[in-house]
């Protein structure tokens, strides 16, 4: 674990107030999770208690204290997507990947999360894959979409 990457991110926010969440979001993007080494480094440099850092990291759903897979599948279960068949999409994804939400496939290829509204309600049901939005999905075409991600 290179502390250099973590230090570079901390340096960006050096003098600002209230940066913990922004800092953790950047670490999450860079490393795909918040490892213990990152927590200890933040504690060392910014003097924020370890318990406080873990409290924040475990409160917010965008942050993960467990490693995430190479590809993040986020199935929207917001109300509009829900009434348009979102639960059937999540069932289909669970069946195809063999994991439940908050889990990662054993080959580290996919992590699955549910999300409550991506703001594309007119196109529901929606799935976000690695930051790309896919709308008008059906249990039939979701499998084909997933197979494109190695």
């Amino acid at each position: 674990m290179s502390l250099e990457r973590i230090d570079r991110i901390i340096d960006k926010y050096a003098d600002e107030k209230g940066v913990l969440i922004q800092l953790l979001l950047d670490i999450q993007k860079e490393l795909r999770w918040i490892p213990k080494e990152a927590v200890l480094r933040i504690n060392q440099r910014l003097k924020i208690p370890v318990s406080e850092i873990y409290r924040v990291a475990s409160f917010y759903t965008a942050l993960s204290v467990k490693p995430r897979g190479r590809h993040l599948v986020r199935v929207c279960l917001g109300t509009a997507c829900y009434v348009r068949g979102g639960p059937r999409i999540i069932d289909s994804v669970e069946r195809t990947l063999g994991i439940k939400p908050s889990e990662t496939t054993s080959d580290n290829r996919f992590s699955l999360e549910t999300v409550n509204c991506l703001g594309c309600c007119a196109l529901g049901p929606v799935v976000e894959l690695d930051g790309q939005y896919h709308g008008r999905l059906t249990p039939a075409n979701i499998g084909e979409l997933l197979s494109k991600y190695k």
Partner: protein
Amino acid sequence: MQLLNSADDLEQLRRVLMAITDLKKPTIALCGSTGCEALGAKEVVKAFKEEFKKRNLEGKVDIKETGCLGFCEKGPRVIIMPEDIAYFKVQPSDVPEIVSRTICNKEIIERLLYIDPTTGTTARHLYDVPFYKYQNRLLMDNNSKVDPKNIEDYIALNGYKALAKVLFQMNPDQVMEEIRKSGLRGRGGGGFPTFQKWDSTRRASETPKYVIINCDEGDPGAFMNRALMEGNPHCILEGFIIGAYTIGSHEGFAYVRQEYPLAVENMQAAIEQATAFGLLGKNILGSGFDFEVKIHRGAGAFVSGESSALMTAIEGRVGEPRPKYVHTSEKGLWDKPTVLNNVETWANVPLIINNGAEWFAEIGSAGSKGTKIFALAGKVNNTGLVEVPLGVTLRDIIFKIGGGIRNGKKFKAVQIGGPSGGMIPEQYLGTPVDFDEIKKLGAMMGSGGLIVMDNDTCMVDVARYFVNFLCEESCGKCVPCREGLKQARRILTNIVSGKGEENDIEKLRQIAETSNAAALCALGQTSANPMLTTLRYFADEYDAHIKEKRCPALSCKPLINFYVDPAKCMACTLCSRNCPMQAIDGAVGKIHIIDQSKCTKCGTCFDVCKFKAVQKISGQPVPPPIPEAQRMKKPIRKEN
């Protein structure tokens, strides 16, 4: 880039921009926002660029990626100027034809126009489309005209004129008076009078004072703020700077949820460009007023949209609300006086300054002035963003603008106000939508989400859905919310699973009343609404689930079975081939039977059957399988 040092500089730049704009030059305006992007808009842009290169039209036709116009259902959409032709559902394969026929030869391609599903008539221009015709798009209209990453587009359309007026022709007292007379109320859900909030912070003696844009928009089904911030961030920024000046704040935060990366990107670009032009930062337009804005990204917590929780999130802590007897307008961010307003509230400010409070107060209803953007979604034909004067009825929004219920089904209810709102049934469709009228029905208008539901939606399951959502999103600080919602979820889950008991309804009412009275913040207090409105208007559904173990909407999986009607089955094997659990026994010519022990009720067989032979049954046992001998579709001939 040009540093503007006075109101005259701004006006001069505006004149130059208008003079160099050739209104007759062909331009293609495509939506560059998240919705159309999800439908492949970027590939359409690429196709246009390639086609222009092929035909040597580069430089002769402009391409502009503009903001969201809200009719996401029909995206990707393309508007061709100067003729103002609107094409919908455009694919890359349509592009060569659009270029050769419409751009070069000024011919219309009928199949790409909007076609009314009932009358078959087409609409050539955007505002001929029924979805847009009946709206009053004071806030959203500019979304089709500006490239959100180019401040000059906004300036050319009178952008920042209101700011210049406030800085040089008005004083803060006069601005406050305009806001008061306008009657503007907060657009985030609370509907609190904007004047009162600003006044409280203005009068507070402590410094520094802070101002915040709330773009957390956590209500599932709401995407109004996304469209405004992605599509025209400067209209929000302008209102924000005016507010900061009036209140006496020099530091502002734009809190944007991390689920909106394009909104973060476009707002960041807007801040940088406004600063470079002298419209933000030090000595704005040479007035001596300094104001800096920083973006703070959310990290995926619905409760952080609550104003006091949002402030603790900006402080880098867990988003937990505070008791409301401490007014954040006096002790907010870092315990200093703070004004927090929703994106749409800030966006209304330049309109009020430019057009006057009297003009604004004439739009809307008696207690709710101005327009409101609604996100219309669910089982409706025209899903998208609808901007109408407050006071327009639910019926007009859902049927006149929304085009009624899709797939020929029947309206059952509309969910309004997100998880804090409630379900409104058919008999109240004539209700005007504003802050006060909807409250009388036990719901609230909220931030503007409207989810339309038809007969296939189970109201008990919807109540369970919202209670589950709130349970997951509860910060856990207060007992009524943390414990009450957990128990309510357990009871509702039991009911939809066929384990409901007689006194469950009474228990739900008690939990709802306790949360309403004693929870720390609006999340807990309004969690009663989904439960109480469904109990009030759909008590019969609860009864069916509890007493008969039956789901009238045929939706709750534990209470339904899929069954192949032998009289209708054509033994085509379509369902058995598509069943992911191989639970259907059958062959060509042999009537199919679903093995209930293997069936996971995914509904695939119901979807694929072309003969409506697959039925959903609830509240009664599955008929026993027909005898083997009767399963053959053709009689077996005896060999002679």
